[in-house]
């Protein structure tokens, strides 16, 4: 469809003067495409991080014993291991608990008078009934309290999802701004070449024939802008990816997978399609005002 609107036989292409790429369409499309790709990449990376965090905590639970009952930790571990659906049980050593508390309490965390609760993390098998297992565990060790790790991370996941939707909203807003710029550019082009349009109408050109001339110029401008914006965004993302890789080494997976890259590639294509569609509609609307 786009190719059909860009290509025209020589004589038809000459109906509007050949001009170098200029004007708001190229610049606005380039800037907006750059920004849309960067924001979309950030949104996709956040989505991946959120799903990675959610996935890693989905089947993990924390079992806690109050300090007074900390001695029952071995019994709790063996009880948990015997319950069907529990894949693994890992008691948290007291030294690790104290090291963690040192961040807030300093040397006082080493005091033997400090009551330290006992904790163990348990991982459940897929499709295990978490509430039945928690109930069975409390039946065997009444002081035990069970909580899901995902519940602890709920606020963080909520924030990540909110940021993800913010990114989607920003992409939509920038696409709208691109469309608005195209509307202005299309009207400006029509005003600039009004005499040519009147002549063409006067000798029998249809609105579609006239629109096609302008649409082609706007499509070429939009493609040039989208290409420039995409190259800039690709360079920026590669630079950021290199920085992330250097900072965290091979400890994390790539923040964007192939599907994400495909989505990013679609953004400039969508920008061009939006520009051409908006130009078409704007020009037809403007021409209808004439006889």
């Amino acid at each position, binding site marked *: 469809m786009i190719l059909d609107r860009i290509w025209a*036989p020589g*004589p*038809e292409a*000459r*109906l*509007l*003067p050949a001009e170098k790429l200029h004007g708001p369409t190229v610049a606005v499309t380039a800037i907006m495409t750059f920004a849309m790709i960067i924001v979309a990449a950030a949104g996709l990376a956040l989505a991946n991080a959120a799903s990675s965090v959610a996935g890693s905590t989905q089947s993990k639970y924390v079992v806690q014993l109050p300090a007074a009952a900390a001695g029952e930790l071995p019994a709790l571990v063996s009880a948990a291991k015997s319950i069907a659906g529990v894949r693994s049980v890992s008691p948290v050593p007291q030294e690790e608990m104290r090291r963690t508390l040192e961040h807030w309490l300093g040397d006082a965390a080493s005091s033997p008078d400090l009551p330290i609760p006992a904790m163990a993390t348990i991982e459940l098998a897929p499709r295990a009934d978490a509430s039945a297992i928690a109930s069975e565990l409390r039946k065997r060790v009444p002081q035990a309290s069970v909580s899901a790790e995902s519940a602890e991370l709920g606020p963080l996941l909520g924030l990540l999802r909110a940021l993800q939707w913010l990114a989607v909203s920003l992409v939509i807003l920038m696409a709208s701004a691109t469309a608005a710029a195209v509307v202005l550019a299309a009207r400006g082009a029509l005003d600039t070449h009004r*005499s*040519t349009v*009147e*002549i*063409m*109408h*006067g*000798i*029998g*050109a*249809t*609105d579609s*024939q006239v629109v096609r001339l302008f649409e082609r110029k706007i499509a070429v401008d939009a493609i040039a802008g989208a290409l420039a914006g995409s190259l800039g965004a690709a360079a920026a993302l590669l630079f950021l990816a290199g920085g992330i890789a250097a900072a965290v080494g091979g400890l994390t997976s790539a923040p964007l997978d192939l599907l994400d890259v495909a989505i990013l590639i679609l953004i400039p294509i969508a920008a061009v399609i939006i520009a051409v569609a908006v130009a078409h509609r704007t020009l037809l609307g403007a021409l*209808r005002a004439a*006889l």
Partner: protein
Amino acid sequence: MRLSLTALRKQECAGVGKAAAACESRGGSGRLQLTAVVQFESVGLRYGTGAEVLRDLDFSLSHGGFYFLTGASGAGKTSLLKLLYLAQRPTRGRIRLFGEDLSDAPRAILPDFRRRIGVVFQDFRLVRHLSAYDNVALPLRIAGRDEAEIDSAVREMLEWVGLGDRSGARPATLSGGEQQRVAIARAVITQPDLLVADEPTGNVDAEMARRLLHLFSALNELGTTVVVATHDFGLIAGNPGAELMRLDSGGLVDPTGSLKNPPRLDKVDSRA
């Protein structure tokens, strides 16, 4: 030129639909039976909220007729021509062109009718970034003719108006007379059913004016209805068979009756 125009007209007659029907309406001698190409009924025109610039126009133009439109500056000649070439809708009354009431026809159907009308604008209205060749070719390209046909027709037409060696020149590099000849070539290249010319000889010398009148007459012989707005009495005198329409303050007038104005309805078959 005449041979070529005739040949093109024959091609049209070999077609179907309106073109073929129009050809059938001609007599065996090639002389056309007169049918109304244009009918104005109580037509008035005003721009915005101003006074009417045209009022109570009632007339018909015959198929194959040749008309001169005269009148003082400001009498409404250009406004009347605008109604004829569908650049303006009447504010009241009805206008029928080629048998269709186009007074308030949807604009989507107007291009088909405009392609049957050739217009020579007073200010030429050439596309300034196109060469003389491309300006003359414009109506054929808009009509979707193939480039081989366009090339031969345009070159022949430019030769005929004496601009064969200026085909690549842009309007800004042409004199007023040359621009006018390009405008005329563009108007007649499609051999329109109706040719409307606003002061077509205003910028050309007497010899070129004579040749242009000859071209208009040749087209008229082939069935084109010709309407020429002019102050050039030499041009009018050169075509004694033509009928005169005189505008005064927006209305058609005929104080002496000698101008056959409005054109005599007894020569018009209003069933067209």
